[in-house]
């Protein structure tokens, strides 16, 4: 009787594992890879390093005015000095706490949505789109609960950008879903209305929608009826974006196999129950990338309200850089505005990816 002799397990060759292995495999695998790697290194050295130098190492961070900015680098003093304007617009300083409270509540409600396991996460999410807007409205507009009025014409900066995008996002999705369902309805009147609505709003540029909302709408309204410019801009944005959203959602609805509708019907679910419980959860999940794409576009489009005289964060920066007290701070201003937009848009993008992973159930079509 002989024992079976197993061959011993050997360690893999040094050249395939560890740092050296990784570098070889990923950076210098072929001559072409080597050229690309060297080219990439060249780009980093000529562009990224000077940019970092300008933005961080040579930058001026402290001081009160232009005189503090002597170095070669960025003059962040300008941003720091005018930060209140960039965040709150023209709102009186004594009301800042109300805006801050709205911001803090937003952060407290949104952060758990990014965490994998957080108790009552879904409830916080629902509160974010139901109770929170009401509380925010009371705090930001005032006029009730003993809070003084804040003129919405004075809203501006990051605050205005966030309010417009939040309202746009929270309202455009449900309106878009209803429009998408309407467009697929068997009832010709409903379908006709939805098709007209979608095609009408999708066919005009947002700028013209905003112009019409601010200039033309008052002409049609009866004497004395006058509702404020911000509200009109919001409605314009919601209508416009919901038309886009409707088409994204419709794409998802069309991808759901007929069998799903039939199975829901055969179990006795009526139209709304089968939509809400069966069809929409699947359709919306499928088009998360498209939905978030629309959200991101909406977030950036809010900046167009500058043409009707509302100062979002970009417009606020533009207004501040022409201040004669500061010289050549345009670059700093635009970099700041771009960074603000990027942070929010990138967060949305990451959130959507996490959501897609979370909702994956092993089902491939």
């Amino acid at each position: 009787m002989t024992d079976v002799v197993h061959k011993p397990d050997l360690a893999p060759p040094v050249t395939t594992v560890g740092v050296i292995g990784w570098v070889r495999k990923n950076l210098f695998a072929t001559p072409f890879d080597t050229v690309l790697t060297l080219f990439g290194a060249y780009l980093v050295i000529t562009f990224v390093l000077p940019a970092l130098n300008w933005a961080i190492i040579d930058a001026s961070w402290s001081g009160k005015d232009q005189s503090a900015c002597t170095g070669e680098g960025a003059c962040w003093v300008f941003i720091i000095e005018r930060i209140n304007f960039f965040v709150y617009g023209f709102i009186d300083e004594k009301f800042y706490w109300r805006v801050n409270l709205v911001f803090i509540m937003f952060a407290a409600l949104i952060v758990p949505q990014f965490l994998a396991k957080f108790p009552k996460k879904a409830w916080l999410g629902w509160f974010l789109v139901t109770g929170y807007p009401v509380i925010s409205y009371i705090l930001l507009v005032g006029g009730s609960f003993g809070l003084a009025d804040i003129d919405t014409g004075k809203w501006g900066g990051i605050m205005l950008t966030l309010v417009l995008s939040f309202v746009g996002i929270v309202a455009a999705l449900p309106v878009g879903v209803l429009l998408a369902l309407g467009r697929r309805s068997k009832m010709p009147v409903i379908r006709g209305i939805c098709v007209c609505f979608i095609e009408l709003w999708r066919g005009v540029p947002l700028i013209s929608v905003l112009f019409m909302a601010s200039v033309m709408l008052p002409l049609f309204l009866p004497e004395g009826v006058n509702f404020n410019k911000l509200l009109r801009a919001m409605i314009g944005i919601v209508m416009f974006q919901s038309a886009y959203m409707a088409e994204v959602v419709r794409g998802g609805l069309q991808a759901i196999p007929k069998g799903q509708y039939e199975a829901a019907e055969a179990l006795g679910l009526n139209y709304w129950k089968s939509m809400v419980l069966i069809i929409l959860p699947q359709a919306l999940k499928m088009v998360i990338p498209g939905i978030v794409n629309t959200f991101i576009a909406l977030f950036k489009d809010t900046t167009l309200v500058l043409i009707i005289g509302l100062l979002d964060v970009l417009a606020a920066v533009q207004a501040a850089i022409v201040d004669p007290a500061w010289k050549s701070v345009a670059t700093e201003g635009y970099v700041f505005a771009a960074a603000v937009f990027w942070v929010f848009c990138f967060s949305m993008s990451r959130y959507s990816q996490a959501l897609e992973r979370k909702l994956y159930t092993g089902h491939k079509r």
Partner: protein
Amino acid sequence: MTMTQASQATTTEDEEPVISIKGMHKWYGEFHVLKDINLDVARSEKIVICGPSGSGKSTLIRCINRLEEHQRGQIIVDGVELTGDLKHIEHVRREVGMVFQHFNLFPHLTVLENLTLAPIWVRKELRKDAEEAAMLYLERVRIPEQADKYPGQLSGGQQQRVAIARSLCMNPRVMLFDEPTSALDPEMIKEVLDVMIELAGEGMTMIVVTHEMGFAKTVADRVIFMDEGEIIEENEPVEFFNNPQNDRTKLFLSQILAH
């Protein structure tokens, strides 16, 4: 035994048929898919419908729970006539379960959620009761251990058994099977047929569209042969297979039983 005797044999115990179809016609646009269908199904009766593809057999059973609309004639299920009236349609759908060729499970819900969804939202059962009942049915189809998985993680045979359990959770009086094994790999067909045979043994009223002639022989009280939208022949299985009357039936049987 003639076809009238065959149906009488089972109808004698129960005077009122569960399903009664009288002079029913259906068109898809200009195309006449179902022509003058007459069919009574007694309580506890098992009917197998066979026929070449495109003969209208799936369309026929889909008319019974109004997934398809008929244009002429009458369909009465459980005493309720199917018309455009949504109340009637909802009533019939609560009483009639359906199992599809492609299972049509809801991929975004777990197996247990698939089973409890309709009892909770249509029959207004409490979640706890619905889940208890669902587990019983999962045991009957022999996959209670899969309750928390998603349909995408199960094999085809398991998915079809879940689909059967999902229908049973609604306590239907009739079960319709639309080619339940046609989309399955051969080794999975048996596990699904076993569940169906067991169900038949418990006295469920069943209408099954299938090409599984072995199943028809063991379970069916009546076999119906359809071609070009008509019921060509119906008989109890022994007679149907051994002594087919119509030439088209003979041709069909010779084709499918050739191997």
